[in-house]
């Protein structure tokens, strides 16, 4: 069955399917019940599955993740929502010291199949703490998997896969793409959770991105095509692990790489990608791996976010610089 669906709706449908097929799946978070979440991602789920499966929690993120761990120990598979990126930090201790480490600590005896959903990123004109991209802070931590879909179909399937995974998955939802519509085939699983996908083939340079920046990179590639430049666009989909094999394969072909993310460049995913790809492709690269991302500054007030965020021109500028080597 293939329907055109907004990304938020695709996650909603995916959660619904999980609730339907596995009685152990739970939804937890602030306002996920009657309200259906501030972005309506859990719309209608409490009505259909009841307050025992779709749980409005007290306003305490550490408590949400900490009790989800306890529920997982009891055999449940909680999908918890953090209302906005900037509010995950009260739960950071539970995520880093407990959720990430319990499997190793127990020598594999304890599995914590928990999904932490985080709507993230900017571009929606929001107030402070509502537009951040903290994925690097989770990718550095062993024991967590970190993914971010860029489109409704991936949103649907990656959520299915995240819930089925026996590992904790931090699921970053590109909130400014929540309303973007595309076809979702709910019958056919498109591929493994942590594999990158070439969304546009090209030969002159590789643009690598994930989540909200994939669409931008496609626009950049369109714009560059008008200038006769043939860019390859990779949707990484996963930030931990990162599918370095796919990036390497692309870079061995194009010999140039620009990584784009909303998060600050300093200590961001672009750093890890640049370091490792340079090591893997040292003799292939014609230019250093360039990075386009946020500045080393707090996410600015809404009226400055267009300047702060990577945009078409800034990415094109990096492409030009890379091609100039």
């Amino acid at each position, binding site marked *: 069955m293939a329907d055109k669906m907004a990304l938020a709706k695709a996650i909603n449908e995916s959660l619904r399917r999980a609730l339907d097929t596995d009685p152990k799946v739970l939804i937890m978070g602030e*306002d996920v019940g009657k*309200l259906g979440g501030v972005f309506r991602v859990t719309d209608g789920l409490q009505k259909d599955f009841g307050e025992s499966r779709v749980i409005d929690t007290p*306003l305490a993120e550490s*408590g949400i993740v900490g009790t989800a761990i306890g529920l997982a120990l009891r055999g449940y598979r909680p999908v918890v929502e953090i209302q906005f990126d900037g509010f995950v930090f009260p739960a950071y201790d539970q995520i880093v010291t407990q959720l990430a480490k319990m499997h190793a600590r127990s020598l594999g005896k304890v599995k914590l199949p928990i999904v932490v959903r985080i709507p993230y990123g900017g571009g929606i004109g929001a*107030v*402070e703490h509502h537009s951040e991209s903290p994925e690097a802070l989770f990718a550095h931590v062993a024991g967590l998997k970190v993914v971010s879909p860029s489109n409704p179909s991936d949103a649907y399937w990656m959520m299915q896969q995240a819930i089925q995974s026996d590992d904790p998955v931090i699921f970053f939802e590109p909130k400014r793409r929540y309303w973007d519509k595309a076809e979702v085939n709910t019958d056919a699983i498109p591929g493994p959770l942590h594999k990158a996908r070439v969304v546009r083939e090209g030969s002159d340079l590789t643009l690598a991105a994930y989540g909200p920046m994939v669409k931008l990179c496609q626009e950049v590639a369109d714009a560059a095509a008008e200038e006769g430049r043939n860019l390859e666009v990779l949707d990484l989909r996963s930030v931990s692990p990162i599918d370095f094999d796919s990036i390497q394969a692309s870079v061995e072909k194009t010999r140039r790489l620009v990584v784009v993310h909303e998060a600050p460049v300093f200590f961001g995913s672009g750093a890890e990608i640049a370091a490792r790809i340079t090591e893997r492709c040292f003799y292939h690269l014609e230019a250093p791996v360039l990075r386009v991302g946020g500045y*080393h500054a*707090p996410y600015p*007030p809404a009226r400055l976010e267009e300047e702060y965020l990577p945009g078409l021109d800034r990415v094109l500028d990096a492409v030009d610089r890379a091609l100039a080597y």
Partner: protein
Amino acid sequence: MTVESTAARKPRRSAGTKSTAGKTTARKSPSTDPELVQLLTPEGKRVKNAEYDKYVAGITPDELRGLYRDMVLTRRFDAEATSLQRQGELGLWASLLGQEAAQIGSGRATREDDYVFPTYREHGVAWCRGVDPTNLLGMFRGVNNGGWDPNSNNFQLYTIVIGSQTLHATGYAMGIAKDGADSAVIAYFGDGASSQGDVAESFTFSAVYNAPVVFFCQNNQWAISEPTEKQTRVPLYQRAQGYGFPGVRVDGNDVLACLAVTKWALERARSGEGPTLVEAYTYRMGAHTTSDDPSRYRGDEERMAWEAKDPILRLRAYLEASNHADEGFFAELERESEALGKRVREAVRAMPDPDHFAIFENVYADGHALVDEERAQFAAYQASFTDVEGA
């Protein structure tokens, strides 16, 4: 919606009530039947209260009219902001509609040298502290993350991460004690915030250090879509006793009671008696913010019941019955309201967008090499457009 509804499949008996030495037992106090301090009934009748009357004993008609004026102007300002949001001038607005008495009563209880730590909805308290209301709009318009100097009015910036500011308030109060000063701190937070670990830690620290801080919880019954039952099964003011300091529930729609109880609590703080928790039992009459749609999670009847307890009508009834205000006063206030609305409207529309380089300003006090580097790159990049356009 009962508190057990989410978790229990089989019927579970409720907590017992017997109490013996060495054991404290949960008190059954449904939050719909609060034991609250009230000085003015919803109809505006002044009722006696042996304990708190003295804190408003000397209040003059002038001061009473002042409280009324504060509430009316705050509501007017709030309404203006809501409509500016609808017009696209603000990105978001968090209305205080219904909470005027809680904010004006407590705000007017503070002394100039006291320090206030608000959350994001304390427009009425800001008003009492003398913060220009148009300054409050910057962050909601998206031109800054806080547009005033906290130290000008001893009114800290709004804090969005729920509960964080209660620890700052406690630390500030510890500093006051260290300095041997006799001022006090008041920290505002909501019923939802009461669940945050930070708020609990602020109770612990303030009790252990006997810090001069008043925790002022506006229980407006809702944390976005969640009713207070999702945060606690007993009235919130009771939380304090387990930490070793008093808690009191006050009618949050009664400006006189809020004034009296907050004065009492601040005086305790000043005289070295340490922290107090005040729970102002009130109601969020509007949406959580302009992004919210309360019809999804609550009925109209509830709001209508609370409209009957409107804090402004209540004081007006009292002012009129006691002949403390005449038609002229109300008419003049109406004009003043209009003027305030106009001023706010114009100020917002005139509010300039920040300079692009503001991104890089104030990230650090002492500078940072990377910020300098990125600022320079940004400047060069910006200049490249000018060049192109200029060419």
